[in-house]
């Protein structure tokens, strides 16, 4: 596969162009990677792919082997592991709040205590997410750092 890079003048014109005879798995991976590096993520409902704006995602949840992205309207399946999403999006205000949930700090409305040293994070869509004891410290640190 040939790779060519062309220098341009303006940052806002930066883009990745894929030229292929057919969309193979390799090209699909490259596309997803490029999208992930920006503010777009590919989510699936059944086999249909959708481009999700990162800021619209409330949280990611791992259920078994699958990871789901929750927006206010829909639940999308994501073909990435939770730890991969965490490492890519940790500087985009996504933080682990329990073993299986990665939450978007910008979509949290408020915190309130649960009865067992944990916290409930009320999301902007009214849903409550549990912040476990272990991750509450990390969360405080992240909030302090800004």
């Amino acid at each position, binding site marked *: 596969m040939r790779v060519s890079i062309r220098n341009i003048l303006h940052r806002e014109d930066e883009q990745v162009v894929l030229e292929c005879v057919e969309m193979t798995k390799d090209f699909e991976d490259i596309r997803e990677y490029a999208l992930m590096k920006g503010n777009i993520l590919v989510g699936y409902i059944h086999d249909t792919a959708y481009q999700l704006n990162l800021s619209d995602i409330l949280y990611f949840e791992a259920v078994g082997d699958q990871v789901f992205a929750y927006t206010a309207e829909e639940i999308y399946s994501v073909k990435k592991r939770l730890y991969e999403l965490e490492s890519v999006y940790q500087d985009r*205000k996504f933080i682990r709040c*329990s*073993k*299986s*949930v990665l939450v978007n*700090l*910008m979509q*949290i409305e*408020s*915190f*309130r*205590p*649960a*009865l*067992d*040293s944990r*916290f409930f994070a009320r999301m902007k869509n009214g849903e409550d997410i*549990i912040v*476990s004891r272990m991750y*509450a410290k990390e*969360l*405080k640190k992240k*909030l*302090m750092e*800004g």
Partner: protein
Amino acid sequence: MKETIKKLVEIFLICHFLISVAIGACGMILGPDTKLGYGDLFVPSLMAFLCTLPTLLTIQPEKLTIKQIVGRKILQVLMVEAIVLSMIHFGFHGINGIGGAFTVAVSVLLVFVGVSLADWAQGCMEAEDLNRRLAQLQKEE
């Protein structure tokens, strides 16, 4: 599952250690000449096992509603009451009648409620702090 077992074993060992130290320290002060039989060596293990049982109720899945958490707390306090009362009654023959049992039960309940309230109050303060920082972060963005 592996994590849960690890946590339970950890709690059991901590309880075992602390109970052994407590028995040793109290024994040295209160009855330094008391002689113990081989059977008494099992007491720390038995007590540690009983102390570990309420922990089973605190091992929780990720998602619990407030009602479920309260339900678990009630089960937990009932279990603690049963363990404390049976340990005092069968282990030390220290409960005199229903009045004595009631006093112990109320004391345990008060301690449990006190600890839960302190935990709740601390949680409220921490939540307030988190909310303040969250608002600041969202404002900056």
